[in-house]
């Protein structure tokens, strides 16, 4: 027993020097992000948590301290609105840590295709949240990684980005575009020692999907995807399906000819 309270006693910079990884999580209050953050906490990482709701971020920070995080900094902000200042924000969060090992982009907005068809506001929100703002954060992160010559960007995309479907093509196109963007970053980082990964989860049992019928072999838990994000930061190719079987499922779905696909209501 070291007698420390978890919180204050150690110097903040000393704690960061001992951290296993220096990690920024954008959209830290999503169920998947919280699952990943707990894995990092157990490892003794230093974490920067970014999301909108400060009170909730504070509650999460206390939890991560108790679970072993070396240090936790919270930043309450609207990631969509602040995307154009991404570079300054990332610099401000990473420089006190002396650099950045992993950055996870987890935020997103599922929205409703039906509403997006009727409302420009909903369509804009889906595209801005999942693509336009996201690529600004990704590019800013890539710039840091390129300079450092190490570290990983992990962005959460979706299997919905693999084929346009009547039920959610706004979300699908935005998430698919994000994966392409990150794939391009991965290419540009090749040989530098830094990496970029787009993770494509299938159905995940989170509050975002409440209201859908859940359960069965195609549904994964937030914990499973959180583990996949953590793993992706260490290894694997630029496009990772999670769970891995979705790579095969989506290959088959992409291969279905339009005259057949158009008879479905997927």
């Amino acid at each position, binding site marked *: 027993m070291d007698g420390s*309270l978890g919180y204050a006693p150690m110097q903040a910079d000393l704690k960061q020097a001992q951290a296993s990884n220096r990690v920024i999580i954008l959209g830290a209050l999503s169920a998947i992000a919280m699952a990943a953050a707990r894995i990092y906490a157990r490892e003794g990482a230093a974490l920067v948590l970014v999301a909108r709701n400060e009170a909730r971020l504070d509650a999460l920070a*206390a939890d991560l301290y108790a679970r072993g995080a070396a240090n936790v900094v919270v930043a309450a902000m609207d990631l969509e609105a602040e995307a154009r200042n991404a570079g300054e924000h990332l610099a401000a969060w990473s420089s006190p840590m002396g650099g950045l090992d992993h950055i996870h982009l987890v935020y997103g907005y599922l929205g409703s295709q039906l509403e997006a068809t009727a409302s420009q506001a909903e369509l804009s929100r889906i595209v801005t949240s999942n693509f336009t703002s996201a690529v600004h954060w990704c590019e800013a992160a890539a710039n840091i990684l390129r300079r450092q010559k190490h570290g990983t960007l992990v962005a959460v995309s979706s299997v919905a980005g693999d084929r346009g479907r009547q039920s959610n093509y706004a979300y699908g196109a935005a998430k698919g575009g994000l994966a392409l963007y990150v794939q391009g970053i991965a290419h540009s980082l090749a040989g530098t020692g830094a990496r970029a990964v787009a993770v494509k989860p299938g159905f995940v049992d989170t509050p975002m999907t409440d*209201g859908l019928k859940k359960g069965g072999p195609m549904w994964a838990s937030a914990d499973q995807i959180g583990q996949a994000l953590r793993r992706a930061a260490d290894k694997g190719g630029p496009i990772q399906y999670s769970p891995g079987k979705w790579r095969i499922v989506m290959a088959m779905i992409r291969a279905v000819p339009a005259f057949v696909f158009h008879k479905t209501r997927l």
Partner: protein
Amino acid sequence: MTETFHSDATLTSWGRVVRERHDVARPRFGDEVSRIVQTLSADSPGLAVGLRRSYGDSNLNPDGRLIDMTGVDRIIFFDRRTGVMRAEAGVSLSQALQVLVPAGWFLPTTPGTRFVTLGGAVANDVHGKNHHAAGAFGASVTRLKLLRTDGGSQELAPGDPLFHATVGGLGLTGIIAWVEFRATPIPSAYLDGEDTSFTRVEDYFDIAAEKRKSFQHTMAWVDCSTQGTKLGRGIFSSANWAAYGDLAPHSEQSRRNVPLDAPDFTLNALTVRAFNSVRHELKRMRHGPYRTHYDPFLYPLDGIAHWNRLYGAKGFYQYQCVLPPATAHAGVSELLKTIVASGQGSPLAVLKDFGPNAPVGMLSFPMEGTTLALDFRNQEERTLRLMADLDRIVADAGGRLYPAKDGRMPAAMFQSGFPKWQDFCAYVDPGLSSAFWRRVSG
């Protein structure tokens, strides 16, 4: 999204006898819980639930609302010097141990599964193998926060009547937002144990009286498949924390899984095999003292995910009673005789002596005496008749049944077993209810 209720047509408890429609909300943060709680009312009562390991219907509210608290699972603080932890109600004992054990602390007491939330541990005032040393869980709770459906909320501490109604109060006095408890220091994550076999149930009582003087953890497995002179043969197992060893917590991965309901025709064979494996391990350990990690000793079935499916699609009942010391000898023998004669019991039953610690909750189950627990596969009328026979023995002996395990006890059985139940009624939040409560308070 997380503040709305979604319909679940076949929600069940651990025993899986009842499958009913519920509207379920899954909040993740305290502010969401506060708002949801205020939508509940006497016209549309709800109930907060955790990992739903209670076996019967104390965690069900058919055609009504449930608040699934498992997403509200943040540790608020943990003081490594004093062992005091405050955590949101949805934190499981399993998660708490991941933090406590590496720092040299353990839960003050624990039931036979770590898949129980802190809220559930308080609401059922759960007990464990160390009851005679530590009391039930509520004895180590130093503070808790309770939200009422009228919008009020308060922090409660021992001494406050509402605290004593809430401990063991089956979630009916309000929604438990967080729990603060005092952990117990451990020198290692291992236990030094020994097993003693006995051939007659009478011998159990002598061994129990002897072992409790020197061991913190005690319990016995009793073989329910033998009759006559071998009635009640079993193995008494006792353990203390080992003075040496590392502080490695358990693995969160289940080693084995039961992926589907066991079909009826293989049911008995599978069930027997599962329990036999436990029995086999016990036999192996029987020769002399042994050292074991806490996980297989305290949580023997947690390594098998969904073991409740072994009882098939119709589910099962668990029957757990406690009899006071004066009547326990005769009462336990009579219960075992009745069970063995019926041929319906699980192959193994658990016996354990509770210590004289005064119960903390008005409806706390543990009281001084001997508790017996075993499973019955749901064979409908036949099983219900047997349990009614057992009820008579328990009532005559001045005993009572454990609400967390119960899905059928009549109101009279509950009311005679828990004499403070009418005092308790004054503290029930009118916006909360359960199938169990509607049955036993009628």
